[in-house]
């Protein structure tokens, strides 16, 4: 239906549209605000009015807010639990609350980071998104969890590494210089996925007080129906279907790199490099390997390649520790056949 109003392409960033709307009046302003609402709808986001209200909340300490999407696709949904509120009868709500709290605590205690943006951003999560939704995602402002279809996947909030994975997409978005995070395609996209898997696993190990040598290094263990598999990915043994699931096609080194592969496929290579680094450095993954990878994030550009990540992590190892750690990280990338020239 043609409303007679001007069509505005959604490629224009919402922030710019919002700014433009402030300069307009009458029908033109209404048309632009309509476009913003429609764009937000397509991205499954809350209305622009809601965004303004959320942004007005002052930054501070740990602040978790859990919403129930009530099986719809409009976000965030109905507010069901805020910071300090008692548990609800809904298990998914409590799991999202508890695991986002542990992830916040990890970033604060281990990496001295205050929430997703480093400035105390409120941690919003919506559970029960859509029906039979076999996924979880970060939408640029909040985390979103489906319940699974009961055939392939069960709920996604049950695994803390899923929650930490999604929250880390936000950390990446706010940490890589330039504001675009790691562009979600090609090698930078695979790195984006990998950093989320890395901190998903490290947060799980930190919570369980597990040394690198004792960890399972599985991502998404327990979210698949037992008939489908045990986990979605393995950082220790990418592509090993005996420990993951029958469709796992992740390569463990560059000999299996797929030039047009999905970011979730090629992420197996940097995932494996992190595993080798953590194993080589010994002890707990959050003591050296985790901080090195975290420090490297801010040394990357949004279009970083695997070689760039290798250089950045080696550099970070030198900045945070010393030659022994630099050598361990160098070996880790060599093990996965990523060739690079060390910086400086």
């Amino acid at each position, binding site marked *: 239906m043609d409303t007679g109003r001007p*069509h505005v392409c*959604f*490629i224009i960033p919402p922030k710019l549209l919002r700014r433009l709307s402030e300069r307009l009046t009458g029908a033109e302003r209404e048309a632009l605000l309509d476009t913003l609402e429609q*764009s937000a709808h*397509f*991205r499954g986001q809350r209305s622009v009015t809601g965004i303004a209200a959320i942004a007005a909340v002052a930054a501070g300490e740990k602040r978790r807010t859990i919403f129930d999407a009530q099986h719809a696709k409009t976000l965030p949904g109905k507010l069901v639990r805020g910071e300090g509120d008692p548990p609800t009868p809904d298990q998914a709500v409590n799991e999202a609350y508890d695991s986002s709290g542990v992830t916040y605590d990890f970033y604060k205690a281990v990496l001295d980071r205050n929430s997703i943006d480093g400035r105390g951003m409120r941690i919003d999560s919506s559970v029960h998104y859509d029906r*039979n*939704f*076999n*996924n*979880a*995602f*970060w*939408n*640029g402002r909040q985390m979103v969890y489906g319940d699974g*279809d009961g055939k*392939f*996947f069960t709920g*996604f909030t049950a695994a803390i590494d*899923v929650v930490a*994975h*999604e929250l880390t*997409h936000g950390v990446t*978005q706010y940490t890589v210089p330039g504001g*675009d*995070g790691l*562009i*979600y*395609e090609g090698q930078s*996209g695979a790195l*984006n*996925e990998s950093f*989320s898997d890395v901190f998903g696993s490290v947060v799980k190990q930190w919570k369980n007080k597990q040394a690198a040598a004792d960890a399972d290094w599985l991502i*998404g263990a327990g979210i698949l129906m037992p008939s489908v598999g045990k986990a*979605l990915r393995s950082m220790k043994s990418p592509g090993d279907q005996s420990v993951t*699931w029958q*469709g796992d096609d992740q390569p463990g080194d560059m000999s299996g790199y797929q030039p047009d592969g*999905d*970011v*979730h*496929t090629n992420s197996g290579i940097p995932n494996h490099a992190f595993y080798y680094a953590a194993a080589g450095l010994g002890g707990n993954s959050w003591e050296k390997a985790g901080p090195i990878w975290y420090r490297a994030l801010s040394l990357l550009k*949004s279009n970083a390649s695997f070689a760039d990540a290798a250089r950045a992590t080696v550099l970070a190892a030198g900045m945070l520790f010393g030659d022994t750690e630099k050598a361990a990280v160098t070996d880790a990338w060599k093990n996965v056949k990523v060739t690079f020239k060390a910086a400086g």
Partner: protein
Amino acid sequence: MKITLRTVGGFTGPAGAQTHVVDVDELPPADAERLLGHVTSAVPEGLPRKLMKAAPQPWDFVRHLKIEDGETVREFQFHDEAASVSLRQLVQEIEELSGRT
């Protein structure tokens, strides 16, 4: 005509792809006519096979659209934010009409 829409992204990636299939021949006539109208306006001749954002983000799910019409098969890949309004409307229409497989 058979239309298949596969959406990939998020935590699960291809493992959790949501697939919607619509067999136009099996739809009630009014639904079929409306859907074919959407296909005509959303997928004109010469539409590029890929309509991707310049700098996609983790929330940009990739849509894979396959239209099978007899011997003719047309396939497209796109992000919602790089697609036309009519293509996004077609996505909504397919999601509403199909049963998930």
